[in-house]
């Protein structure tokens, strides 16, 4: 099956490429920062290392016809919305890897939002792409646990392992002509996470602050608070009985006091 990979991460592309029925004919990806490459890999580098042609998303969207005579596309963390005209290029469709149990947590940053919500489970969904974001029929779905101390990077890795496991069955289903099953249940769409979403408010409970921090650990932009007009990105806190008269930074929350035990350094701030 002549296949195009859409997306920047390289955590699934190798598994896809290794499937005997997949002929990976091209990659649509772009250069990414050194930090993102360290944490999520680079599909573009995978292409370069394996002699697979790579084009940028801008070039791909401007093509006007399907490249490399491909019949199928697989998408992981693609940066742009794919219009109907491009969906129609691929006779076997485009399958998207989404890190939530759809239709819950549709949208761009489902893992961050799942942790911010304090969820103890999330999951992965492999589904056909439709015009609306994360709305197409499901080919496979698997729950992934979120422990109460897990960071978004740890949950990311757990979801990737689930995706790697599901990939062969999903590709087989596509080849068999499976149409998938409709998404059932309440659709909950979350907007892309922004820096403003990381602000720690006094109205947050201590638990909510913990969750915000682990949802936005490095290389994400972090949970932050304004101190004397300056933004301080908080990487860890501990609960204390009361504020002490020392140099530490304390956060007075709805249900207690937190001592900031680690803030993000300048170098990391520049990278996140």
């Amino acid at each position, binding site marked *: 099956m002549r296949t195009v990979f859409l997306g920047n991460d390289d955590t699934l592309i190798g598994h896809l490429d290794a499937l005997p029925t997949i002929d990976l004919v091209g990659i649509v990806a772009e250069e990414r920062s050194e930090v993102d490459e360290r944490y999520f890999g680079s599909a573009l580098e995978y292409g370069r290392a394996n002699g697979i042609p790579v084009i940028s998303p801008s070039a791909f969207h401007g093509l006007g016809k399907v490249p490399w005579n491909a019949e199928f596309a697989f998408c992981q963390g693609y940066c742009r919305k794919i219009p109907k005209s491009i969906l129609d290029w691929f006779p076997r469709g485009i399958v998207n890897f989404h890190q939530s149990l759809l239709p819950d947590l549709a949208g761009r940053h489902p893992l961050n939002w799942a942790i911010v919500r304090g969820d103890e489970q999330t999951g992965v969904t492999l589904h056909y792409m439709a015009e609306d974001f994360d709305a197409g029929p499901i080919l*496979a*779905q698997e*729950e992934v646990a979120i422990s109460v101390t897990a960071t978004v990077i740890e949950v990311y890795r757990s979801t990737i392992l689930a995706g790697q496991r*599901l990939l062969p*069955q*999903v590709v087989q289903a596509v080849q068999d002509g499976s149409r998938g099953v409709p998404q059932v249940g309440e659709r909950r769409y979350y907007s892309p996470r922004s820096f403003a979403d990381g602000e720690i408010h006094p109205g947050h409970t201590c638990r909510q602050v913990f969750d915000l921090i682990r949802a936005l650990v490095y290389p994400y932009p972090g949970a932050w608070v304004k101190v004397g007009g300056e933004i301080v990105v908080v990487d860890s806190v501990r609960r204390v009985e009361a504020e002490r008269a020392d140099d530490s930074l304390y956060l007075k929350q709805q249900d207690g006091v937190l001592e900031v035990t680690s803030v993000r350094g300048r170098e990391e701030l520049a990278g996140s």
Partner: protein
Amino acid sequence: MKRVFFAGSNKAVFSYLCRREDIRLVGAVVHASSAIGDDWFDEAKRFGIELSEVGNDRELEKRLNESAPVDLGVCAGFEMIGVEVASIPEMGFVNIHPSYLPWYRGANPFFHVIMNGETWSGVTIHEIDAGVDSGLILGQRKFEVLVGDDICSLIEKANEAAVELLASHLSAILDGTIEKKANQGGSYYPPIRKRQRIEPGMGEEYIRRLLRTQTCYGGCLFASESGDVEVDAIVESGGRDKPSRVFPVETAEGSVLYLTFLG
């Protein structure tokens, strides 16, 4: 006495419902795509139950209306029933799904349970809604999955568990006192539509599991030098059997497995 209607290809459940004395089985259908033996019709005749084949929801609807009034529909091993038809019986339809929901929603849970190396699975009775195996859970039972289990033995275990589950839960379902549980999360896996094929370069454990999933379908396919053959077992070495019946395959780990067909 409550009037129950059966739809499906699960003979163990059908036979159990035929014999239950506190209900009246008012009709039964199998899907036209299911291959059932004459024993089904003999059983139906013995208990005075009209058994017929249906090919779609419209035919099912017709049969349900002919059997009216129906209090509850019980489905086990049937195609998906549309919500409208599922709501014809007074209490709707329940489905007996051969996995411990919400895990392993979808058409072939046994295949995926074996491939994922699970050590237990189960059977669930749930309400039918618009989704795939996603209705509220009415009852569940677990069973062990052993390394020696193949798809045939898992089907037997699931059938046994399904009958036990009906024995313990059907009365409460029928009198409306059953406790309902949410059916969210878990997993859904795609249906398996084709014979599975063993290819060189697959992992050793993957091949072993794949063989266990295909025993009741005549084994896996393997491309030998003389063309496609069916294989269903691994022999210890290539030297003990006639070379023409043993097919070596190199695994991802570099080991060689000797495939054969034991039948």
